[in-house]
């Protein structure tokens, strides 16, 4: 497997664009229920703090701060684009699907219908050391989503 299959152009672009980056600058949208999660990859020190806000039965906003490799940053950016506008159950389904592909060591193909741009991370599943990089923001989103929908606002 070549390096270009890991670092697809869409990943390199998102690692620079960082959609959703800038948590501290933005407050929780009025009327939304939110949850926030901090995740750390102790192997490389990559960190993310991510907030999911739910309003009117939908994910109204996803914002995050973090530092890390191109895979972890691009993954958070792609997740932001995907998550906003989904119902909480739909986002959970997308997260489950992403996790299944990433943990499959290349055995499970990504379904672009479900994962959209996140399907580009399929190749990461063949690099065991990088799976955590790609999963970092998604683990944070799952945790934050759980808080937001349980109504336990963890706004800081």
């Amino acid at each position: 497997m070549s390096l270009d299959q890991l670092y697809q152009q869409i990943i390199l672009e998102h690692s620079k664009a960082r959609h959703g980056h800038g948590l501290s600058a933005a407050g929780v949208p009025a009327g939304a229920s939110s949850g926030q999660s901090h995740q750390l990859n102790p192997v490389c020190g990559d960190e993310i703090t991510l907030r999911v806000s739910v309003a009117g039965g939908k994910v109204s906003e996803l914002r995050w701060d973090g530092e890390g490799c191109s895979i972890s940053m691009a993954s958070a950016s792609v997740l932001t684009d995907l998550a906003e506008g989904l119902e909480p159950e739909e986002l959970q389904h997308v997260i489950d699907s992403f996790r299944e592909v990433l943990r499959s060591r290349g055995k499970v193909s990504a379904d672009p219908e479900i994962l959209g741009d996140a399907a580009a991370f399929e190749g990461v599943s063949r690099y065991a050391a990088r799976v955590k990089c790609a999963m970092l923001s998604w683990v944070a989103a799952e945790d934050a989503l759980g808080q937001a929908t349980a109504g336990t606002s963890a706004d800081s």
Partner: protein
Amino acid sequence: MVATPAHLLRSATALGNEEVLRIRNDFPILNRSVKGHPLVYLDSGATSQNPLSVLEAEQEFYEQRNSAVHRGAHHLAVEATEAFEDARETVAAFIGADPDELVWTSNATEGLNLLSYSFLNASLPGAPAEAARFALGAGDEIVVTEMEHHANLIPWQQLAERTGATLKFIPVDDAGALDLDAAARLIGGRTRVLAFTHASNVLGTINPVSALVSLARAAGALVVLDACQSAPHLALDVKDLDVDFAVFSGHKMLGPTGIGGLYGRSELLNAMPPFLTGGSMITTVTMDRAAFLPSPQRFEAGTQKISQAVALAAAANYLSETGLSRIHAWETELGRRLVEGLETIPGIRVLGPAAGQERIGLAAFDVAGVHAHDVGQFLDSRGIAVRVGHHCAQPLHRRLGLTASTRASTYLYNTTDDVDAFLDAVAGVRGYFQA
């Protein structure tokens, strides 16, 4: 007193590429390819590779001598014990110690934990009077440095927390050198332990051992040296360095994993309470009490790492026969080539001493706009193995304003071609990641 090891007497003529190519034939793994490229192994600072003589020593032990040591009267037990103790003699001589001053551990981390826990045991109520010199309590201070590997930091953090002692650290300057003025202020009457690394696993800095030992001696503090990054690369003489304790790991010096050593001055080891207790480390045992053997058995409870010790002795012999001073001279050339080469590449910041300053044969660096993980992945695609991350030195990286870096570390089997292949690849990193 141990005779000066042969490797200390050799001239310091550096190895050359031609000789290194012959050396490489002794290391089977260096012939393999990775992702269609010949392997360029520049991660010996993490784990070094093994020459055939080391692999054969371990196999020969299992095929001919495998048995428990220091127990049993049968012939294999005798031969195994001899091989085990011969290995101790060889490795002790390699670092300039007497055999009874070398305790086998699993690695340097275990050696440092052994010290930390033995000092803790000495600090508990009811500890024997002879152990008082290791006891710590409120008001006492342990001093480490800001460049320590976590292995030489966390055991001391834990010891301070459990005894009420205070942990202090000697800061590093922007060039990665210890602030010796600060050290002189920090090390004083309250200092009971000074623990520091001989050579930094990130910066490559070689620390001024004698200056630090002088400060510790004046304060009456015990000196613990982390020799993980020096024992494989420099001719080490613990007596000459005048430290009280030193630790090293076998797998960083051509030996197998699972074996390392703790050096301690004999009188200290024999006064120090044991850490692990059980079989093989006792004299008389009743249902209530036990009396302990002298060093080194005192600290070697349970069945030991026998084949690993035998193989580590083969590694020490390999290094001695090649000549540590020649290895060091060669690695110094490779280190200089690494630093000078990296400094010509735009966007690269080399950590530690500037080009021309003394450093062991490694270089860690930051690439502007590209995370170390991505740098490592790019190099891996060309068959080049380096270390990425915080290298178990988070406080040092924080001091340097980084969370991670990339490190290339050389050993006696690396050629200038290895360094050049690495530099060529690094030059392509920022372009690939559009940084």
